[in-house]
């Protein structure tokens, strides 16, 4: 039994042309937390706090315009991956100082013994250091293309 990215990434979790005003990381993370929580105020606050806590340790902007804000949430039932392509490049304080155009948010249950999903995430993480993969990822402009590309590449 193996998990696939499709278990966590649904077509409706992919957003393009996400407008962030002003163009900074703080606002972007608030927006991502709100969109991931989908109206659940309690979850939104928890996500926001955990994302910020992780960014404080170190920026998740991992270079070449991609950021992977991530959070482990206690009591969460299903892991989720959501993808945001921004309308304008944002300053994310990324390791290569390049502005970020794409955020892949990873929301994982904390204390989950089932590590099948984490295996998918670790594969995704390994892919993100592959320049060819990242270049191709950035070329995907519609939610359908992004979803298709990611699920195709990661099964």
């Amino acid at each position, binding site marked *: 039994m193996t998990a696939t990215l499709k278990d966590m990434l649904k077509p409706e979790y992919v957003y393009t042309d996400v407008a962030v005003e002003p163009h900074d990381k703080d606002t972007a993370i608030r927006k991502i937390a709100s969109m991931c929580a989908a109206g659940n105020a309690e979850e939104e606050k928890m996500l926001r706090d955990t994302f910020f806590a992780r960014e404080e340790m*170190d920026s*998740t902007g*991992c270079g070449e315009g991609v950021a992977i804000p991530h959070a482990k949430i206690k009591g969460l039932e299903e892991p989720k991956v959501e993808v945001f392509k921004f309308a304008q490049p944002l300053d994310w304080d990324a390791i290569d100082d390049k502005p970020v155009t794409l955020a892949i948010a990873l929301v994982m249950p904390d204390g989950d013994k089932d590590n099948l999903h984490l295996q998918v995430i670790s594969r995704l*993480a390994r892919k993100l250091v592959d320049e060819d993969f990242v270049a191709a990822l950035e070329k995907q402009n519609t939610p359908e293309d992004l979803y298709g590309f990611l699920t195709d590449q990661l099964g």
Partner: protein
Amino acid sequence: MKIIGVTKCPTGIAHTYMAAEKLARAGKELGFDVKIETQGSQGTENVLTPEDVRNADYVIIAADVAIDDKDRFNGKKVQEMPIKPVIKDAKKVLTELPENAKQVGGEFVTDKELQKPTGSAAVKALMNGASHMIPFVVVGGLFIALSISFGGTATADGMVVSGVFWEKMNAIGSLGFNLMYPILAGFIAFSIAGRAALAPAMISAMVSVSPDVLGTTAGTGFLGCIVCGYAAGYFVKWVNTWKVPKGLKPIMPIFVIPLLGTGLISAAFIMFLGGPISWLMEVLNSMLKSLAANTATAIPLGLVLGAMIGVDMGGPVNKVAFLFGVASIAEGNPQIMGIVAAAIPVPPLACGLATFLSKKHFTEEEQGSGLSAFLMGLIGITEGAIPFATADPKRVLPSMITGSAVAGALASVFKITDVVPHGGPIVGLLGATNNVLMFLVCIAVGTCVGAFMLMAMLNSKDKKVDAAKAE
């Protein structure tokens, strides 16, 4: 240049793996041999072995939190750093490693590990099986040996034990002796996968040594039991990785796994090994027939028969040679039994002799079983060498096969005959051979060849370990 490393980030979700991948890719581009262990939230993967650590020129620890088992890098040149610079520019980190890495003090832990003969988990499992088997071989073998020495008479049916006391002792010994097979397989499997693997391994081992169940004229001997042990161990280990509903979990180790494991492994032995073993025995038998038909091939015949005795010590190959010898007595050509009888005691005698002459190469346990092996050898119980062959097959088997072959060839040259279907010095002393003195000489020479070859191989192994340590 060989570089090893560990990556670990606070959440263990992404950066651990990104950093590992970056280092691996950068290493490939730069032509370095790089192996990175990831300590993430899915556990530790791509684990560095003691060999990896020993062979590494540099160690890189890229972590934002403390890593596990850092002291295994004591004595190495280590650079510790946060994850970020690695993801940013892994090539730079690797090329600058020789300047930045610092020698870490402390004792080099992995070197101690290396001195232990037990290396991988597979070897440890084998040693575990062998050490649990030894008491059974000793008790069973000595009871049989004593009862034959004091209560046995040489007859056309082999050594027949008479007298109530000696009969019972022989029967008890046989029970104990036959237990060594399931114990060997069981404890190999136990070492790999724990309690649930015991039943499948032990029952399948009984199947593999029971010709009736197997549908052959001989069981697989101890070699088949080793296969059983590994098969059951790794099978159960694999089943344990299955995701099963919570309600089923408690009955897995006591019900599902033993049933499934025993059924599958036993069935596999019957279906896939029964046929080949019968075929092998037939082929060997016709080969022996053609060798025996020609008097010019007396020495090859002796070599082949002797070697066959030493190959599996009670398994099918041994059995073909033994039965071929037994048949020759009935055909009035007891010279073939003479060859077999000279080869039979060589493996246990040679293993025993090696433990007397070269104590440092054997554990205390093995030294103890060396004496009983020697006694079993005198009585013609080849199986006495099985614990040695199990613990170190790569060295013991070739030496024992060579020793047995030499004894067989000499017996063939001196035209030794034996009219009792049994082997070892005892049949000579009981007057079943035509030339006791030469019979004993054949055995002694074969034994010395086997023992000295084994000691030479053990010495060269020591030299290799020393050389590795001196590096």
